[in-house]
């Protein structure tokens, strides 16, 4: 039995997506830049894809720019805005729990004359709106806050932040890799200027993502080359990837409410069962305003890599924020930013759900986790 519960890392491709993509490899293999019918067909398909992705988030379809994924989108958004607006200001505000592609882009900018404020978060991962307001200065050009944190599922108050930034001449970037297709997003209502989204988190193909850039945004490209559909991201389009991404987005938004309801039930069952079966554990992150797709718990007196490996031996794929899986041998920075002790972070196990998981999966995972915990606890000097 294989129970895949690492859907924040990647997801299984939806068969309907695969079917949609096939002809773009072998039949409609043109790229949009040609002047013949084959390119025309590819161009039409890419434009339709922009619509399928843009319309559900209330974006103008031509403002959807395809990239290789959310990492690239975050890099373009942050560095592109910084470079294009440095004459106006050199100050950027983000948070301590952003994805590494945001944090490391900011660190790069820090070494190049920019000043970055990393907002603290509370024990559930929420930023303090007042702290954000206090950090804003005349030099602030960009605020970047993720919608949903992939480690702990915290849903940030994006609409509130958007309201604060409105009419302030500060660009608002949102990393929505963990929420696109799963939660409602309205770029106009939320006052979002730039939005990073990913395909393989919503059962689409890997290696494709997009950046929404509101028309009129002053932004510089990071790559320079042949300008096809957009000068912000030159080079020939990954047409099959784009088609697959758009199909995945279409399915995700059509089925969003149904999936949300279903997955919330699974999530709550998993949280409640772990609480009941392993009393020496606690839920990390909020219970309210939490993504329906995330469950992260901390198990007392054990180390997460050993638990994850024991789970894998029983066919359950999950992950951990323990230092033992990181190259720096430091516990996961998101968990430490919440104020958790190192040992609480080392004992963390993350389960991320998808529409393909079943109640049977959940019950099996709990059983496997209990067994793993008891096995490892037997070895531990802490009891």
């Amino acid at each position: 039995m294989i129970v895949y519960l690492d859907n924040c890392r990647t997801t299984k491709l939806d068969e309907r997506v695969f079917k949609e993509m096939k002809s773009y490899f072998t039949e409609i293999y043109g790229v949009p830049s040609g002047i013949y019918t084959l390119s025309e067909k590819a161009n039409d398909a890419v434009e339709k894809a922009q619509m399928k992705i843009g319309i559900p988030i209330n974006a103008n379809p031509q403002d959807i720019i395809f990239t290789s994924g959310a990492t690239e989108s975050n890099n373009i958004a942050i560095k592109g805005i910084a470079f294009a607006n440095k004459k106006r200001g050199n100050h950027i505000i983000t948070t301590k729990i952003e994805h590494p592609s945001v944090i490391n882009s900011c660190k790069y900018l820090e070494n190049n004359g920019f000043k970055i404020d990393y907002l603290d978060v509370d024990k559930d991962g929420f930023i303090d709106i007042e702290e954000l307001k206090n950090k804003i200065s005349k030099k602030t050009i960009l605020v970047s806050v993720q919608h949903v944190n992939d480690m702990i599922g915290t849903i940030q108050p994006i609409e509130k932040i958007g309201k604060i930034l409105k009419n302030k001449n500060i660009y608002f970037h949102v990393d929505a890799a963990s929420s696109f297709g799963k939660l409602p997003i309205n770029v106009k209502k939320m006052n979002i200027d730039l939005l990073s989204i990913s395909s393989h988190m919503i059962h689409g193909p890997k290696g494709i993502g997009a950046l929404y850039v509101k028309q009129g945004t002053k932004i510089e490209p990071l790559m320079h080359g042949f300008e096809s559909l957009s000068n912000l991201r030159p080079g020939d389009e990954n047409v099959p990837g784009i088609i697959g991404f758009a199909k995945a987005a279409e399915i995700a938004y059509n089925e969003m409410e149904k999936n949300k309801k279903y997955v919330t039930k699974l999530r709550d069952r998993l949280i409640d069962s772990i609480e009941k079966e392993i009393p020496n554990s606690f839920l990390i992150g909020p219970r309210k305003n939490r993504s329906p797709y995330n469950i992260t718990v901390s198990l007392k007196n054990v180390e997460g890599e050993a638990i994850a490996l024991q789970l894998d031996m029983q066919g359950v794929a999950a992950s951990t924020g323990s230092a033992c899986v990181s190259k720096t041998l430091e516990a996961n920075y998101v968990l430490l930013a919440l104020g958790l002790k190192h040992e609480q972070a080392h004992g963390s196990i993350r389960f991320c759900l998808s529409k393909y998981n079943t109640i049977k999966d959940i019950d099996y995972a709990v059983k496997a986790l209990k067994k793993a915990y008891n096995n490892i606890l037997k070895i531990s000097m802490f009891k």
Partner: protein
Amino acid sequence: MAMKYTEIVLENFRNPRNIGKIKNADAKATEGNIRCGDMMTIYLKIKDNIIKDAKFESYGCAASIATASILTTIIKGKTVEQAEKLTWRDIIKKLGGLPPLKFHCSNLAIETLHSAIKKWKEKNKIKF
């Protein structure tokens, strides 16, 4: 990150040998750091300069557990001097290799063993 563990490591992780405490141990040491998520305790029973029994407890990853399992297996029946000569490289060899990121785990096991032997020597006033 997927860890590439050898079959020997996985087998020792799945069925670790010599888990637990030794009552009235002749030597005992705990090393490591909770901050790094890696701590180990080794208990030794020593008679006539020979390690009669060895047990361990570990708060750590799979590599750490497997390392302690194999180390406690190797040293049983060895003289204290033979055990002292073991290095972390010997342990890695016995495990059929470890991912480089996990070399420090084998180091921790050796460090804990050395620390236990040092304490035993001090207690028995044996010269180094």
